[in-house]
């Protein structure tokens, strides 16, 4: 074997190692989050963590149920706002707009993804929260405020992945439908949408993941009370805000309980990612 060949082999090996960096990082993150968070869960019993309503870290009571339900509420709310808006944008951009308009609109909408989450939170605090407080009652910091801001924040995820899957539908499908005399809307509803269904579902699931994982914006507008909200206007605390609010001063077992919160969040996100991954891989014939 000459020098050149050996060098090629070495490069291949080095690149393979580099290529595994993402997987290794994922693995290391999993190990550290679980290593730090699971002992305290087993010490008190999983049931207590998942189903107890009392989060009083100073009295060693670590019930995460209010936060789990809080996360589910704001995520559901975000989907109610984000899915119609997002899918409408995706359909308009792929089916109902001219090429030129699309070239302007797409980068503008992508800009939404670039705005930092603290800015979204801030806009929520200075505009949305006072509006809700004055017109609908309650403290303003609420499930509703968090849902609206999160709904806007997940738009870029839903829009870009839905556009990709609508664009991946073969042109002949659309042309065939139009040739049969269907209108654009009928074509969209009866041909394009079903054909792109798996990608669109994946986009919604990934949007869910983003909503559940969002932290800073939610802390600023959700009110953060560790109780189960009774209405849309009640304050709410999510899993993410539970971590970020108390990480600054928590120590010992309290900190471990925050990592346990991280473990639950991590598991939810991984399940959603895997579902999204499997749905989008299932190709329509």
């Amino acid at each position, binding site marked *: 074997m000459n020098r050149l060949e050996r060098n*090629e082999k070495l490069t291949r090996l080095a690149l393979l190692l580099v290529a595994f960096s993402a*997987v290794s990082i994922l693995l290391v993150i999993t190990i550290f989050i679980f290593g730090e968070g699971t002992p305290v869960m087993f010490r008190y019993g999983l049931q207590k963590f998942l189903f107890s309503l009392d989060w009083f870290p100073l009295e060693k009571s670590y019930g995460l149920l209010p936060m789990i339900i809080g996360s589910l509420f704001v995520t559901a709310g975000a989907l109610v706002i984000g899915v119609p808006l997002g899918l409408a*944008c995706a359909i308009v951009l792929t089916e109902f707009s001219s090429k030129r308009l699309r070239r302007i609109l797409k980068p503008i909408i992508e800009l939404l993804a670039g705005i*930092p989450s*603290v*800015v979204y939170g801030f806009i929520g605090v200075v505009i949305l929260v006072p509006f809700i407080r004055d017109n609908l009652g309650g403290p303003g910091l609420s499930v509703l405020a968090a849902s609206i801001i999160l709904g806007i924040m997940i738009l870029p995820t839903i829009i870009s992945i839905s556009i990709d899957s609508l664009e991946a539908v073969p042109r002949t499908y659309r042309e065939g439908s139009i040739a049969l005399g269907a*209108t654009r809307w009928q074509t969209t509803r009866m041909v394009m949408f079903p054909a792109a269904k798996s990608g669109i579902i994946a986009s919604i699931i990934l949007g869910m993941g983003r909503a559940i994982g969002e932290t800073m914006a939610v802390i600023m507008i959700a009110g953060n009370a560790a109780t189960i909200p009774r209405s849309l206007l009640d304050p709410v605390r999510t899993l993410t805000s539970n971590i970020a609010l108390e990480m600054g001063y928590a120590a010992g077992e309290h900190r471990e309980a925050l990592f346990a919160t991280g473990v639950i969040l991590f598991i939810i996100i991984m399940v959603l990612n*895997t579902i999204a*991954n499997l749905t989008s891989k299932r190709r329509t014939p």
Partner: protein
Amino acid sequence: MRIYIDPKIEQRFFRAVLWLFTGVTVFILFFIIFYVLKRGLPVVSLGFLTKNPVEMGKAGGIFSTIVGTVALTVLAILIATPLGVGSAIYLTEYTRENWVTRVIRFGSECLAGIPSIIFGLFGFILFVTKLGLGWSLLSGSLTLAFMILPTIIRTSEEAIRSVPYAYREVSFSLGSTKWQTVTRVVLPSALPGIATGVILGVGRSIGETAAVIFTAGSSLHIPTSLFSSSRTMSVHFYILAREGISMANAYGTAAVLIIAILVINVLAYTLMNKFMRKYC
């Protein structure tokens, strides 16, 4: 009994609804940008950009947080780019689709979905505590680098894939090795596409708060070494707004952030457009 609706009227109705929703989305975006700029730009002056914060940010400017943001972002990019581009080269040039590439892609996709607060927790426990790096530029930039790695892998892979195969064939026919072909032919042609990924990574690092606040800390001093704690603009903005220290300075910081993000997005978009026009 089903009511018959003229498909043309149905289409007109739904088209109106869809455009209305799109309009709402675009309006929200412009509203956020203009609102922040309108209130923030009057605060931004040369002094605001070049003076350090005084009294926790109540007075003075944001100079040290600009330095912190730039330092953290540059370090994160320096760490993530070689890893990301290397991964992309392996995936595109050195292997065929098999279980290894599937594992790598799945790992990268999962990493992309992990919330920033989890990165923050992880960086805090590994870099800040276990490795004893403390709240520092190094801890913060390593955490950020891990966070933006999937973005860089994905965009680099797309960029490298779109370089026409003929380029490689010509290079091979001239007797170059695979590595020579990659470094001298493929990478230079894919550079604008790769740069787009890197710029998007810069955008994410600048806007990130949750992962940074627990790893780089929130010191208002100008960082002097890799081990000094530092506050980024996003963290500074968050603290100003949340603790009600100074609304005026919060708006000013937000305006600078928004302008930085706008510039970055325009840059990424123009580069990508140029690249696409060349090959696709």
